[in-house]
Every structure is written in C-alpha cells, then in structure tokens.
C-alpha cells in the first residue's frame, strides 16, 4: 500500500535553494519506496531556531500552526513530514507546546483566525528519517538496492537538530546509530568510530560568527579524513551546506587542502536504487562526490530476482 504524507519541504529545498538537490534526491528515493509526499499547500517558513529575537514565542508557534492547519484542511489524517532538521525541530516543538497547553492553543487560534484558519491540534510531526526507519524499515529500505555502494567509506555526520533535543526513537543522543545502519543497508561502509558524529557545525552562526563556526567545521572534516572517509553523509540541510561550502574558506585562511564531499542519506539511497546523477541531485555539489557519481554512471545494476 502506498504510504501518504503531508510534506513540509522547507525554504532551503525550493528551486535553486541551498538544499534543492536534497529535495531532488528525496523525490527519487520516495518514488522507489512507493512513498507519496504531497506538499502542504502554501506552506510557510518555520522561523528556524535563529529567529527568536524578532519572533518571540507566540508568533513562532503561529507560523508552524498555520502549516498544521493547512495540512489538516487539505491533507486530513496525514502525518506532517519534514526533510529539514530545523523545520522538523521547530514544528515538533510547536506541536508539543500546543498539545500541552490549552491556553497557548487558544492564543494561537486567535491569531490564526486572522488568516481564516483554525488548528484542531491533530498534527503529528515527523522527520523523513523516522518515516524510513519506522514506517518502511531497514529490510524494505534494502530491498530495492540494485547498486550496493560497495567500497565507499562514509563518515556519518548526524549533527545536532535531527538528534537533539527530540532525536530518533530508540537512539542515544551521544552515539545514534541510524545513519551508520542506513549506510550499511545500502551496501556502503560506515565509519562507526567517527567521533565528530554529533558535533555542532555552528548552525546559523556560520553566518554571524564565521570564524568560530569554521573552527567546528574544520574539526568535522579533518576527523573524517583521519578515519579514511571517502565522504561525509548527513541528514541535515544546514549541516550539509555549512560543512561542504566553507571548506574553501578554511583552505583560504589556514592553507589546508580540504575537499571532502558531503552528501545526504537520500542521495545514497537514490544512487543505490539506480538513480542517475541528476535524479540523485549529485549535480548540486560544490565538492564533487566522485565515488557516488561513478557508481551512478558506471556500475551496472544488479538483476533483482
């Protein structure tokens, strides 16, 4: 049976956005896994975690609740699924706060009324990774693999916001294993001893405090080199962007020669499922993920029994 979700893609995934290739690969992956993602009509920004100084408390919740109300109206009964770590965190925080406080829910609805909307507090907010692990399962993730990612070593960089404060059920905050398991499931080699797995890349402060953030990023990339990684893999669009695009800046300032590709879990799955480089969003990288591109272009798909 086709699984259906109310999709909350988020700002960075939009056409020519900084994570547009994430969305491309998610679409390809979901097609193979028979997952139907319907974008919430006219969805808006969650405010991310950085907007607090301007937003205050209620306005932030109202922004997220608007998306929930639209999902309830247009896609009733479907879980809201985010691919972005910050979207997921912001939306889930709002969902939990409004579930816990009838006063906050009433205030939110008083504001939503101005946009002709009402939130019934039915939303269930989930991350794409949760859908894969909990609704699809590792066994079914493995089934459509026609190009196992053999011989490719991945440093699984989980980062912060898909891991804390909510995290994925059954995983520890200090050493979550799901990303390594996912790599293994599609035939790659996870570097399970990679110690920067849950470090912070600086997040939004990569803009406002570039040197402090690049110090974090330098450690994240250098540790991947130390462990012999071919590339880093991550579930978070901001981690992906920060860790990939600032390597040239770090090189400029420190005379290093960092050139470590950073891919999304969804790109690994898409390539393993036989997607072309374009379908897997591999044309959207600043540092080319050569080993993945080679598999996508050259390797002949296995015949499935």
């Amino acid at each position, binding site marked *: 049976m086709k699984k259906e979700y109310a999709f909350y893609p988020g700002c960075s995934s*939009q*056409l020519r956005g900084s994570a547009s290739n994430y969305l491309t690969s998610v679409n390809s992956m979901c097609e193979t896994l028979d997952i139907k993602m319907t974008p919430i009509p006219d969805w808006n920004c969650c405010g991310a975690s950085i907007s607090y100084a301007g937003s205050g408390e209620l306005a932030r919740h109202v922004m997220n609740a608007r998306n929930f109300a639209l999902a309830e109206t247009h896609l009733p009964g479907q879980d809201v699924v985010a691919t972005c770590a910050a979207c997921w965190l912001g939306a889930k925080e709002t969902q939990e706060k409004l579930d816990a406080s009838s006063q906050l829910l009433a205030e939110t609805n008083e504001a939503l009324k101005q946009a002709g909307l009402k939130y019934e507090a039915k939303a269930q907010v989930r991350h794409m990774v949760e859908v894969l692990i909990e609704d699809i399962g590792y066994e079914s993730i493995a089934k459509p693999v026609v190009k196992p990612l053999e011989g490719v070593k991945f440093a699984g960089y989980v980062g912060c916001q898909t891991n*804390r404060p909510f995290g994925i059920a059954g995983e520890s905050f200090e050493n979550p294993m799901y990303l390594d398991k996912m790599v293994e499931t599609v035939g790659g080699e996870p570097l399970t001893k990679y110690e920067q797995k849950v470090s912070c890349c600086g997040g*939004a402060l990569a803009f406002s405090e570039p040197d402090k953030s690049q110090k974090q990023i330098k450690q994240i990339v250098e540790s991947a080199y130390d462990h012999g990684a071919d590339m880093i893999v991550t579930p978070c669009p901001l981690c992906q962007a920060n860790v990939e695009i600032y390597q*040239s800046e770090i090189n400029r300032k420190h005379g290093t020669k960092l050139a470590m590709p950073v891919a999304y879990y969804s790109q690994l799955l898409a390539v393993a499922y036989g997607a072309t480089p374009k379908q897997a969003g591999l044309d959207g990288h600043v540092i080319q993920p050569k080993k993945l591109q080679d598999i996508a272009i050259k390797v002949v798909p296995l015949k499935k029994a």
Partner: protein
Amino acid sequence: MSDYAGDFLREVEARVEEGEWVKMCMQCGVCAGSCPFGEHWEHSPQKIFMMIRAGKREEVLTSDSMWMCTSCYNCVVRCPRELPITQIMHGLATYAERLGLAPKMQPTRRFSLVFWNNCTKTGRVNELKLVMQVYFRNGFIAGLKEAWNMRRVGLGLLLAKRMNPFELFLPHRCKDQKGIQAMLKKAYEIEDRKRGFDS
C-alpha cells in the same frame, strides 16, 4: 521593573519564555562543559542562572553570552534536571532585545532580526537577500569586500544551482502573505498583553 520590586528571578519567571525553570538549576556545570562555543562566551548558562538568582539584572541582560547559542541542544539533553536551557537562552536574548538592552552590534543578534524579517515578509526565506543583508550590514564598501572574499563560495553555489540570482526580483513566496501578516500582528498583540509589554 518596579512591579518586581527588584526581584529579577520573579521578573524572569513572568516575562521570559521558559523562565520559570531557572530556579531549578542545581549549578552542576554540565551545560558549561557541553557548549560547542564554550570558549567564546563570558558567562556559561550555569553562571547566567546564578546571576539571575543573585539579581544581577543589568549584567545578565547586556551579556553577549546568550547570543552565542548555536541551538545545538547539547546542554538540554545532558542537563540532569532536564531544563530547556537552549530555549531559556533564546528567551533571555529575546527579552534583552525587547528591553533594548541587548548589545547592539552583536552579530548574531543582528542576524536573528534580519532572518525573522526576511522570512515573515513573504512567508518564506529569501536566501540570496539574506546573504546580501548579512554582508552589507556594515555598509556598501564593507559589503563588497566581504562578497569578494566569499566569491569562491558564491560561485560554487551558483554553479551547483543552489543559489538563484533572480531571487531578488522574483522571490519564492506564500500566496496568502496578507493572512500571514495579519496573524502575526495578532500574535504580537497577544504576547505583548500576556508578558505585560502593552502598558
């Protein structure tokens, strides 16, 4: 704040998001040791909590430290009392901003305000405009210099089709921008009333 008779802890409890948790801190210092930007701030969350209880209103609200939060939530998951430390830091920063006490030139303070204005204007973040607003925050010449320094990053993103030069003219946007503005206006009103900012 005459209403709080010099009791800063009570003021924080009433007016800061998640401020009611501050008194639960047992001063163990795990938050201080867990922060990725620990070497860059003057006051750890642990210190800030103690300063609040000691009534050091001005020192807390003018501190640079809350603005160093990267929202990594390490402190939250490690706190033995399970306090929402990240959220309290954001709440204190927001409160300092509302009172006009936040350090004006603090780069993350400025970025936070720019981000919120950016994303609420059309309902969605305009990434190119966001970057321009950050680079040109200190004037045109400084902006050109910063943009020149960052040309490799920008060109890389452009070639990877992850930056849209037309976003300045044809931005991504929500259809119901009017509705979004109206609901936000109402939300600010309600919160001002609730936190006592309307009097």
